């Protein structure tokens, strides 16, 4: 009879340390980049008084969105009581924690005054969605820690379902909060619409699902874990469903903007004549991120793993470009300060489409953040029993049992 047990990451010591130091090196580079930006000032970045949020924010928001979505697997297990997913739940929660911490680290290190983090943690303006997000993000980390504990410790295992339901509810609110960072900005035509909140939720579900698949595949390269054909097919179905939902909300967002007459010019900018931003939207966000993966998944009648992997990689490239369009293109379009006047000249670039060319320091910080999330996962799975493994024979079961 098959039995599932949870094991630590079985990896050669040499390989582990190579990965650890490799990721550690990228994290160090990321930290040094942020330190340089902090000591020299943000003029060394591509950000300026026109594009105030840049590449670090693309990385940070994407990682936080993934953090929320990657918990999907655990939610299906705990909230919707699908036994099939139960073995995969602890890893899902660990990934959520790792991506959340790294996204927040990037956000904090990009602040003008990261040394004032204590001010952000102690002085609140509760009218600000940012202040709410500080609670939502730190609360999520705490809830995830409890959730992981209830899943890994048999003594408190009975509490894993309520903890899972709480975590699920919390993360829906959390992603609503992330989407609302933009949704509540009335001044910019790209934002200021409540549809951004559900759009962010559906993006998180899609990106989180494929990131989970990618990480499990990477772990499986070293160690065979439980990842049955049934789960694979379910992930494929989920990916398809989320791709459709994403496409639907994206269309809805743009159609809504087209109906709001004061947003019409911005829509023309994004959809037709925005240059690099229009290309990023159509080629990146729509074709690479949504249409091609849909096509690949539909076309593959064998429902193979390789087609899901191709779709995953395309979705991830598309996710990055989607964030680029939302964050950068939204700021690049000049503010409309006058209703009956056109701005001819300004010393502050009020009349031009802003350009943004990120520097190596911002890229370093962003990649350092990604490395941070991976090293947290690596340390987590190497030291705690996160990985579900199928034990078939009683002998093997006994052998592994004595291991752990």
């Amino acid at each position, binding site marked *: 009879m098959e039995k599932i047990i949870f094991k630590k990451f079985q990896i050669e010591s040499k390989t582990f340390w190579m990965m650890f130091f490799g990721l550690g090196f990228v994290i160090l580079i990321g930290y040094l980049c942020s330190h340089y930006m902090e000591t020299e000032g943000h003029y060394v970045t591509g950000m300026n008084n026109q594009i105030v949020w840049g590449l670090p924010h693309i990385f940070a928001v994407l990682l936080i969105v993934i953090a929320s979505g990657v918990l999907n697997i655990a939610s299906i297990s705990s909230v919707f009581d699908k036994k099939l997913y139960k073995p995969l739940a602890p890893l899902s929660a660990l990934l959520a924690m790792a991506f959340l911490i790294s996204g927040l680290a990037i956000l904090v290190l990009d*602040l003008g005054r990261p040394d004032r983090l204590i001010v952000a943690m102690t002085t609140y303006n509760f009218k600000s969605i940012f202040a709410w997000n500080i609670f939502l993000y730190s609360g999520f980390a705490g809830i995830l820690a409890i959730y992981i504990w209830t899943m890994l410790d048999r003594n408190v295992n009975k509490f894993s379902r309520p903890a899972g339901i709480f975590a699920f509810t919390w993360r829906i609110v959390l992603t609503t909060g992330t989407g609302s960072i933009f949704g509540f900005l009335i001044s910019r035509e790209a934002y200021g619409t409540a549809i951004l909140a559900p759009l962010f939720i559906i993006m998180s579900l899609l990106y989180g699902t494929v990131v989970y698949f990618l990480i499990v595949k990477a772990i499986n390269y070293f160690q065979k874990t439980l990842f049955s054909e049934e789960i694979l097919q379910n992930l494929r179905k989920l990916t398809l469903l989320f791709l459709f939902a994403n496409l639907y909300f994206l269309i809805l967002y743009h159609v809504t903007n087209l109906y709001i007459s004061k947003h019409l010019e911005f829509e023309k900018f994004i959809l037709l004549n925005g240059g690099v931003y229009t290309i990023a939207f159509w080629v990146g966000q729509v074709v690479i991120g949504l249409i091609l993966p849909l096509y690949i998944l539909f076309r593959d009648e064998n429902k193979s793993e390789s087609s899901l992997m191709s779709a995953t990689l395309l979705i991830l490239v598309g996710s990055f470009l989607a964030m680029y369009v939302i964050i950068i293109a939204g700021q690049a379009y000049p503010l409309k300060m006058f*209703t009956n006047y056109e701005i001819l000249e300004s010393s502050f670039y009020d009349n031009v489409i802003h350009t943004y060319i990120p520097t190596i320091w911002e890229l370093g910080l962003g990649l350092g953040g990604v490395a941070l999330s991976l090293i947290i996962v690596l340390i987590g799975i190497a030291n705690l029993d996160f990985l579900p493994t199928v034990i078939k024979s009683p002998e093997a079961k006994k052998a592994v049992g004595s291991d752990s």
Partner: protein
Amino acid sequence: MTIDTKLSRRGFIVKSISLLSTVYFIPDIITSAQAAKPLNEEVNSDTKWAMSIDVDKCAKGCTACVDACVEENGLYGFDRPETDSQWIRKLTIKDIKTDKVKVVPMLCQHCENPPCCDVCPTGASFRRVDGIVMVNQHTCIGCRYCMMACPFKARSFVHENLTEQVTTAPRGKGCVESCNFCVNRIDHGIPTTACEEACMKEGHKAISFGDLSDPNSRVSQALKTKQNRRLRADLSLKQRVTYSNI
């Protein structure tokens, strides 16, 4: 009759303390008596600072207001226009219907419902009860959310190390800043901003500043004589900076 000149121990202590406290307190009393009155008073909502700008009086090519602001607040730049701070700037605008070209100063509009204050996570962006919207340089964490929220691009982020700040306008790398209606002047009892003063000196008188609750203030007079408009009135931000002939 004999006068007892002997000083008792108790008398010595009492007189010494009295003398010391006099020496200690008198300079403070004198300084505060000499200081401008408003510093001793709490800001209250009876005062409503506001500005009216007559666009027709604003002269093309004149940068007196911008130069005065730079001098008043020590806003020297690094010759990097994309990252240097600008608290007030001149825009050249064209009427879409008539093609008539005008110039207009743009600065923080000191909204009564300021989006920058709404979004600020620490409350560093705040609005005083007298209507001045400003940034607390001690609690600004440099997240730039207020810059994302401002519909008038009135705010600047300090992108590099500063060394020659003026004492009347505290500024620092990594914080956001914007026009504060020359709050230091106002709190020292000078009810005019540097930009208004410069504009008057040039003889244009395009900028009128003052207290809305005082019917004789320059701004109240300007509002009486010409119809003023708020920019982006559709956003209902109730700015305290208004424009006429636009």
